């Protein structure tokens, strides 16, 4: 009852100190009204509350309704992921938040444009590998290619790693977009 009680005080007032859950990566689809500042609200929420953003894509998807779809990949403990979803849902322009990872029935894709500079055998090898990965050549000079590749992030990572010794000089990636399988919509 008083302060002499012999209880170790290694923890704090704050929940993080006692959090023993493992962090997970989740992909969230966030349907929002496309209005000025809406992206700032979403990003500000992440930075203000100390959440991570691994990937972020945003574009207007329904022009008539002025709605945009934001796809954000984030990491956190299950409790934090739940908080992120609830906090996003609380924003006034947010219509829906769907956890694509939790639903377990979603397809995720990413597009990358990969610039490779080289001559001779390396150039031939790059082209051969691109073919194996179903990457398209979208620009070519006598000393460079730009490949366009789509797929899961792992596939892109792998392609980029293979291109590295073959003269990779620049990569531009869209970040992840996701959609649920089957006939149901958001």
């Amino acid at each position: 009852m008083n302060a002499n009680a012999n209880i170790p005080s290694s923890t704090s007032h704050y929940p993080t100190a006692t959090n023993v859950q493992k962090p997970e990566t989740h992909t969230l689809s966030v349907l929002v009204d496309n209005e000025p500042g809406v992206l700032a609200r979403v990003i500000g929420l992440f930075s203000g509350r100390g959440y991570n953003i691994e990937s972020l894509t945003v574009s207007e998807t329904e022009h008539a309704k002025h709605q945009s779809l934001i796809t954000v990949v984030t990491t956190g403990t299950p409790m934090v992921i739940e908080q992120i979803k609830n906090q996003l849902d609380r924003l006034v322009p947010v219509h829906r938040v769907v956890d694509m990872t939790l639903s377990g029935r979603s397809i995720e894709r990413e597009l990358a444009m990969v610039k490779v500079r080289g001559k001779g055998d390396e150039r031939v090898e790059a082209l051969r590998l691109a073919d194996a990965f179903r990457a398209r050549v979208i620009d070519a000079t006598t000393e460079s290619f730009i490949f366009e590749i789509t797929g899961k992030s792992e596939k892109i990572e792998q392609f980029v790693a293979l291109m590295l010794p073959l003269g990779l000089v620049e990569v531009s990636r869209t970040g992840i977009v996701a959609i649920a399988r089957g006939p149901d919509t958001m």
Partner: protein
Amino acid sequence: MTKETASTREMTGAEMVIQALADQGVKHLFGYPGGAVLPIYDALFAQKEVRHILVRHEQGAVHAAEGYARSTGKVGCVLVTSGPGATNAVTGLTDALCDSIPLVCITGQVPTHLIGNDAFQECDTVGITRPCTKHNYLVKRVEDLPRILHEAFHIAASGRPGPVVIDIPKDVQFATGTYSVPKEFPHTGYHPKVKGDSAAIKAAVELMARAKKPIFYTGGGVINSGKHASQLLRELVKTTGFPITSTLMGLGAFPAADPQWMGMLGMHGTLEANMAMHDCDVMVCVGARFDDRITGRIDAFSPGSKKIHIDIDPSSINKNIHVDIPIVGDCAHVLEDMLHMWKAEKKQADKKALGDWWKQIDKWRARKSLAYRPSNEVIKPQYAIQRLFELTKDRDTYITTEVGQHQMWAAQFYHFNEPNRWMTSGGLGTMGYGLPASVGVQLAHPKSLVIDIAGEASVQMTMQELSTAVQYRLPIKIFILNNSYMGMVRQWQELLHGSRYSESYSEALPDFVKLAEAMHAVGIRCEKPGDLDHAIKEMIDIDRPVLFDCVVDQKENCFPMIPSGKAHNEMILGDSGVSLDDAITEEGKMLV
């Protein structure tokens, strides 16, 4: 002009602002003019429906609107200019966000063609206020203004209430457009859930009926839900026979005079409330959010209990503490359903177990954790609040506070039996809140006795609003517990920093009596316990603003207290004889 003829007609953006306020039933607007809002001030000049209250600083305008809102349940309204007007309002907006107070704050902005140009008195108001509002708008076209004005009120007041900012560039204020009251709002995705899930409510009722050591833990959400919610809470607590405690923000929802009331819980809560929270087997949390001032050490918080959490904001659930039965919905709706289900299913509390539980609680109560050593020489701050309570309890009284020791003593020793009578800055802990808040409360309740329980340090932060009170003949009473220290800072320095009172002494204090007189108010000083009753009565009887300098014991600390890093069952009591230095571990010192 009647509302019918005004319902659709041509007018300027500035006129739309005033028309929308009038249509929303706004009677008082707290503000301060400046270049970017002059068209709106011009529109104000030509009408009588909305009364403008000129404050002395924009922070004061927002706190006054908060006091107004909290004491009436209506939306508080603020009008300030661009740049410094908006930035000065930020503290108040953040305060309102933390404590879920509905506000609409209209800010002027430089003309649209100058936005982003670093123009005179320009700031990125929507950028700055984005994280400290529930929502905000920059209005770029006069066509959007009527919809936005009305939606702002809807958003501020519905769901979990909060502040909304509308930033209006000066050219939009001048522009002419068609005003009408909108039938629908731009944000079609905003639908706060008010009705609780009936399966969850059923599960909660089952759990409550089986409880052996139950407790109600209630918060500001009950107050925000309206007077009806407080009534339902009282009925449910009576029907079940469970003990009840509340957070700082929730005081008054349940009458403090009732035997089932255990007093406030948390860092400076009563022993019985905190021990019962720790030992309970079923906790019913109604409109509170497991804030760190309440829980203390998270992993030792009420370890043996099943927890039911009613909250309108889904993000409050499972944020700090995992709960077993979450119920998202408005307190009044959920409490009504709960009560209905309890009665319909003829539920009975376990009488025997509850009797034993109350016996245990009475043992804790007998410890008299709020006891202090009385004195005939100096005024003890607790004694001052007790006398203030005794001498004002039979009147129609509203209390506001600043932040610090005096605030905690007010919460412990001033007893509230009705909701909306207690206005304090809980979440943000804003020193300087109470004086301007009392201005707002007094405007809303001109015949009532409105007292700001203050500290001599806090009150100096927004002292200038006394001038506002004088201007509008608002007879607020500022009751300063003057211990010549930032008392809570001093207490923590004693506890955590070896009594090194770094910068916490209130040096060069003004003579509050002369200060009051210089500002055309009345000053009273009281230094002896024997004079206190007479002085308080004198204060109450004066129909003008009074600054009451109550000189109290400089060394008194606020107890009981859960030290940093400790659990609910490790409280320090005022007369426990425990040395403060031993009470807190090294890890505890890291915390605030």
